[in-house]
């Protein structure tokens, strides 16, 4: 009947308009000009009331727990509402910023602060996706003493140039179940012997996971005896000749790995849960305190012990960066600065939260600030205190991609 139809069309029209309005409203807000990083008072003032979307890997519950603490602190101290966007992989966020740039979205991006380092940072710099320089203008940046600690301004051999702010330090640390073995290997060569004696009790995460890729780099550095070519772009050297010893080593190692090298766990935390399940006796992690915190959380047996290889292990600094199209740069900078504060760094290092090491130069802090960092050192699962002095520097980021591709070529398909 003709009289009834208008109601239905009106309803549909109303629904569609409502939906369109709901979708369009946020983009009607006009973007504001970000104050310059060195005008810190203006930055703080602008940050008050902003919502910062902090994209950070969310695959580890203890990291999330620490970030939850940071969120509460930011609200209390600065009135900034931080939202932790949990990423499966940092490259998801990189891909998103790229998609926004492709669509011409230059001032209303969805990522305000990004936990990043290594090849992700290199990719974003190359594509001009980052805001900066801002890091050196942060009030707490001076506490890291970059002159004495060059690793806080170098990301996988690339100079940071203020485009990202340091956050924490990671170093490859091995851990083993002392109930199964009490002679863990102390070098890569010894690892091969150990694997032969204990087949199926060790493995490394599947490439392209960052922990697994770091294992490759560690092996290559040791096998090539820290050849200088590793710290130059990979295109400058004969890749096949440089990596031949690595593939020989892996060919010899794989048959003695867990599942005979036919399957690899997806990530470092997965490796840890395999040990918790009793499937592995030896594993490694990027965080020296990983095993100790895991024991506290019932994920690993109390008989676990940590150590670092005799020749040193790879270590790096991880950072936070701000995409060029973030609409809340002031809030993001405030957050980055807070992350560098002694109280935030101390909480991060504490075993009750995350256990990730600080980038601050603790020896040169004031007494009151240093006191925040005291930790009880009688946890048997922690590595020995002097172990972490022996750090090897990361190779050039181009080696990471090249090694990953080569590994996938050699072992990517059974």
């Amino acid at each position, binding site marked *: 009947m003709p009289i009834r139809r208008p109601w239905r069309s009106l309803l549909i029209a109303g629904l569609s308009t409502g939906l369109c309005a709901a979708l369009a409203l946020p983009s009607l807000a006009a973007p504001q000009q970000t104050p310059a990083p060195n005008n810190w008072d203006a930055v703080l003032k602008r940050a008050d009331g902003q919502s910062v979307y902090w994209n950070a890997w969310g695959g580890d519950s203890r990291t999330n727990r620490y970030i*939850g603490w940071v969120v509460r602190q930011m609200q209390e101290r600065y009135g900034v509402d931080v939202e932790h966007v949990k990423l499966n992989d940092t490259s998801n966020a990189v891909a998103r910023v790229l998609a926004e740039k*492709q669509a011409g979205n230059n001032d209303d991006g969805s990522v305000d602060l990004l936990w990043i380092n290594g090849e992700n940072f290199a990719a974003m710099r190359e594509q001009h996706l980052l805001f900066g320089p801002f890091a050196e203008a942060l009030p707490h940046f001076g506490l890291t003493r970059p002159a004495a600690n060059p690793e806080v301004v170098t990301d996988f051999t690339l100079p940071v140039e203020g485009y990202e702010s340091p956050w924490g330090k990671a170093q490859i640390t091995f851990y083993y179940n002392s109930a199964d073995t009490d002679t863990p290997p102390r070098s890569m060569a010894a690892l091969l012997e150990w694997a032969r004696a204990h087949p199926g009790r060790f493995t490394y995460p599947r490439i392209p996971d960052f922990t697994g890729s770091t294992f490759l780099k560690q092996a290559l550095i040791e096998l090539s005896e820290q050849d200088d070519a590793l710290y130059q772009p990979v295109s400058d050297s004969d890749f096949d000749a440089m990596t031949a010893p690595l593939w020989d080593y892996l060919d010899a190692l794989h048959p003695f790995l867990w599942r005979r090298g036919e399957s690899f766990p997806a990530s470092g935390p997965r490796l840890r849960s395999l040990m918790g399940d009793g499937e592995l006796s030896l594993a490694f992690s990027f965080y020296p305190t990983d095993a100790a915190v895991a024991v506290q959380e*019932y*994920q690993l047996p109390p008989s676990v012990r940590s150590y670092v290889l005799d020749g040193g292990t790879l270590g790096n600094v991880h950072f936070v960066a701000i995409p060029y199209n973030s609409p809340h740069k002031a809030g993001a900078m405030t957050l980055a600065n807070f992350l560098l504060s002694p109280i935030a760094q101390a909480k991060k290092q504490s075993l009750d939260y995350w256990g990730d090491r600080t980038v601050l130069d603790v020896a040169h802090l004031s007494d009151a600030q240093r006191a925040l960092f005291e930790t009880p050192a009688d946890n048997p699962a922690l590595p020995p205190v002097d172990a972490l002095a022996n750090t090897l520097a990361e190779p050039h980021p181009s080696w990471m991609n090249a090694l990953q591709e080569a590994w*996938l070529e050699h072992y990517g398909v059974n």
Partner: protein
Amino acid sequence: MALLTLPVAAGLTMILLPAFGYLPVLGSEAASLTPFRLLFAQPGLWRSAALSMASGLVTSFIALSVVVLFLAAGRGGWLDRGIRRLVSPLLAVPHAALAFGLAFLIAPSGLVMRFVSPWLNGVNHPPDALIVNDPLGLSLMAGLILKEIPFLLLMSLAALAQLQSEKRVEIARSLGYAPTVAWLKTVLPTLYPLIRLPVYAVIAYATANVDMALILGPTLPPTLAVSILGWFNDPDLNQRFMASAAAVLQLGVTLATLLTWWLFERLVARLFRPWLTRGGRRRGEATLRRLGRMGLTGASLTAMLSLAGLAMFSLAGFWNFPDALPQTWTLDHWQRVAPMFGGALSNTALIALAATLMATALVLAVLENEHRRNIRPARALWLLYVPLIVPQIAFLFGLVVAAESLGVAPQIGLVIAGHLLFVLPYVYLSLAEAYRQLDPCWLEVARSLGVSRNAAFWRVRLPLLAAPLCTAFAVGLAISIGQYLPTQLLGAGRVNTVTTEAVALAAGGNRRLIGVWALVQAALPLVGFMLAAALPRLLYAPGRILPRKAT
């Protein structure tokens, strides 16, 4: 209905363009076949594609057989009724939760091994056997089958209602056919065309799914959909061209699998026609009946054990290998996760309710329209299935770029719209048959008493359809709660639901926390289904007639 295809078309276009080399922001504006050339040079590509295709065909076949045999063999009784009641809750368990549970159940260090070690086999360390993530994809297929069975069973039950199956079987039995054989010969040929589209949806999902493949599927090489996800997220931004080409390939694989199934249908029809008319009455009766009973019971048992394993982990302290139960129990994990429940739960509930309400309203409008104009829409049904058949991974990335180009920021409104796209087909499927076979006499009587058509709709039709409506609503809620990729991509990770939290933790491997989230994720739709079962009875006084089929 045609509106549904718009987003899919938009998404596909934004994928097709880069696949042929057009992506201005990366500086490439010339059309070329390089992405495809790069794609075909990837090692293991054809194996990934073959794995996807095989899992599509094999799992659908097995799931369909299990369901069909169960329906054929079920003759009332407590088992039959029990299983029918279990179907909806099992359907509601999201894919990721079930995959986690199954992974733990069958792993060499998993629940089954813990129960039988060391007293049965003297094993103190888990054997080094590649079960989960096996290269043939068998554990992935097992997981897929467990999820497909409840869906197909639900669709079959809905379709059976309009077939008068009881009568057909009675007639066949009076002619001397054994019950199971009778059902298979008389009801199955008429049932299959009604569930053909759900079967296609199941095949499409099996070939292109990501959630389960990430947890259970083979890894070197993974299934095609998982590879695509990896390529789209590669830090080397130039990989996006190849990823788009791969998405086009995925679409091709899905279509090829559907085509193969269709050919298979024809073949079976040709081969079994003589069997239908040959007159054999008892051959295979006992085997078929036993298989029917065991098949579904086994599947349900496996699913329940998986969930039980997750429940135990959520409360477990350290759990050493050969122990059948954890050494210590603790509420720590639930306490740690509890503060984070609030935001995720409210988002999940909001999105699910909004999407399902809109979907139900649209479906009712469409169905009422069909009824009034006496349209029997065959083509509309195919359009409806488009979002289910085109792999999510193939068009969601493109949709994100399309949304960005229109200036629509990622936010909850966009996520709701995305969920609407996927919930709508399921709600329609659940509701359509019940709607159509409602006895028109009721409406005629109402009209003859002077009531207008709209009033008849609100006051007669809807109350009579209360039960199917509530079930359809619950199905819609379950689908929306379990969605991962749409929420993650359209919300830019800002909208956190229970499922996104659970999958984010999946990378972390902390099984205890995964157990907590997976249980919460599984419990939510369950609440929906319980309400759906109870609400019609509560709303209408007992004794009121709720007719369901025309006799």
